[in-house]
């Protein structure tokens, strides 16, 4: 039928895109990885790496802990999205929409925080301002 040729344009990948049934072992591995990262997060919070580094080297890296914990959280979320939510085997369209929310959220954080970071920087009047007024 002519429609097969036509529908290739259309992005229905009915024939190409079968639902993959993932192996049980994959789910278990992902779960164990999630457990590992959970314990790692808590460990990072309890044994404050920032303090340890400061004691050892005198170097104070501000916000190191929260960065470690957030990195771990991102890894955990990625694992869930990729394997539990099957994005790994999803079509390109699924990838785009799965990414869109996170990307747009980061954009919102960045734009709003750029205001907060720059607040109060330029409240000084230019020289000679008093004479004009």
């Amino acid at each position: 039928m002519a429609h097969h040729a036509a529908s290739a344009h259309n992005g229905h990948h009915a024939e190409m895109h079968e639902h993959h049934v993932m192996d049980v072992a994959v789910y278990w591995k992902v779960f164990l990885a999630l457990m590992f990262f959970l314990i790692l997060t808590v460990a990072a919070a309890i044994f404050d790496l920032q303090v340890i580094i400061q004691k050892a080297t005198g170097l104070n890296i501000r916000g190191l802990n929260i960065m470690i914990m957030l990195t771990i959280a991102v890894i955990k979320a990625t694992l869930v999205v990729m394997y539990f939510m099957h994005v790994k085997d999803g079509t390109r369209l699924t990838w785009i929409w799965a990414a869109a929310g996170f990307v747009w959220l980061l954009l919102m954080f960045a734009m709003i925080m750029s205001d907060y970071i720059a607040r109060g920087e330029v409240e000084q009047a230019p020289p000679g301002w008093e004479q004009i007024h």
Partner: protein
Amino acid sequence: MDVTTTEPSSARKNYLNWDHSWQSWLFTLDHKRIGILYLISISAMFFLGAVAISLVRVELATPRGDLVESETYNKLFSAHGIIMVFFFLVPSIPATLGNFLIPLMIGARDLAFPRLNLLSWYLFTIGGGFAMTAFITGGVDTGWYFYTPYSSTYSNNQVALTIIGVFIAGFSSIATGVNFIVTIHKMRAPGLTWFRLPLFIWAHYATSVIIVLGTPVVAITLLLVLLERAFRIGVFDPALGGDPILFQHMFWFYSHPAVYIMILPSMGVISELMAAFTKKRVFGYSFIAFSSIAIALLGFLVWGHHLFTTGQSMYAGMVFSVLSFLVAVPSAIKVFNWTATIYKGQVEFTAPMLYALGFIGLFTIGGLTGLFLAAMAVDIHLHDTYFIVAHFHYIMVGGALFGYLGGLHYWWPKITGRMYPEGWAKLAAGITFVGFNLTFFPQFILGQMGMPRRYHFYPEEWQALNVLSSAGASILGLGYAIPLFYFLWSLRYGKLADANPWRAVGLEWRVPSPPPAHNFDEIPIVVWEAYEFVPEDADEAEQDREAMPGVPAGGHE
């Protein structure tokens, strides 16, 4: 909305007459019927919003506050803003014309999720019910943008109820957005590639992206206002360590792009009208298509221009100012391309085309005055004056509403199977145009002179311009009322419309008017480009139509 049974048009079963029971309307899953339900709801909303603002304009005819007290005045303009923005403009074109036309235009039998579509209408109705209850039981005086801490801490009227209404309506809009995105991605007929799509579809896709990315943010923001009212958690209250500017950031993160939710579908309509009434392919098709997407994405990066005078950092203001100028580029691309489409076209000055031409002029004025406001220094003078009011009404009424009215006229034969009376429609379009300009042009001058918005009295010397504006508003009201009457009249007495009364192209004109409930007897396979008019060889086009199964050639029945 019933078509009388004595008319020959009812001989053929279509989506309107296959079942007349009220259940078949209230529980319908047909996108066309849901579009009609939306049309009725938003028309009622538009009427209420218009009543509120008429009182405001009457009050402003004199410099003293003699008709209503300041508190009532505040409630009136707030009701006008809330109704018009959240319950009319945001759903206007997408939920009525979009709902009706998207499946027809892309060759699908329905939207991807018909039940979600019906749910969306019910959510809209429930949200509207909450808002109406709020207005009846005391009203709300915060203005449509609920600025904190006034709305969260001090205002003692029905803020909570209104916010719940807006919140629920937001979900209805999200449901529509999700539905459109999936439908446009997955339901296109074979052969209908992205670049063969009508520009109406591109515009609705861009709109849906904004809805999906933006609406939840305003939902959570308003929810935080509710929590603040209930528990005083202090997120937006400076007295409790919160930051009201954070509210403004998060509110405008949605509400500025929401402007594009209102205008983009209208731009889609204009593209269709331009092609249909010049009998030409739209000039610069891909530029218009991509400029829709560019507006949707860039539109998210400019909200800070609402905060120039409210304590935002100056550096952030500069960035937002530059980005706001940038968003003018895709908008201008559209205007230039539409204008170029007219060049050497066979222009027919039908009523929809008059609205479209009006749109181009008014939108250009609205857009250019927007650039004044995007310039930080100028904005400090014009902020919160009538200049702003005039500016956004040129976009919202001169742009979005003109597009909506033009589209409604253009597709009215498809929706109802009846023609509207052309003479009256042209008259109404003319009256609307004159009335609109008379209402809002004086407000530019008033704003530039420094008249602040949202006050119910003003110094004597501004009376002349205000009277002019109020007079214009009554003409504008007449311009809205006439179509209401002739549209209702045409349902029974209008000339019967054939499948393609405008001799336009597009899949929606290849099915009978009104379309059958299942849209297409057979899903078409599209092998032609968008707006492929064949002027020199009209016979071939006629043959095409004949070859289309289920569509009687050259006329009605």
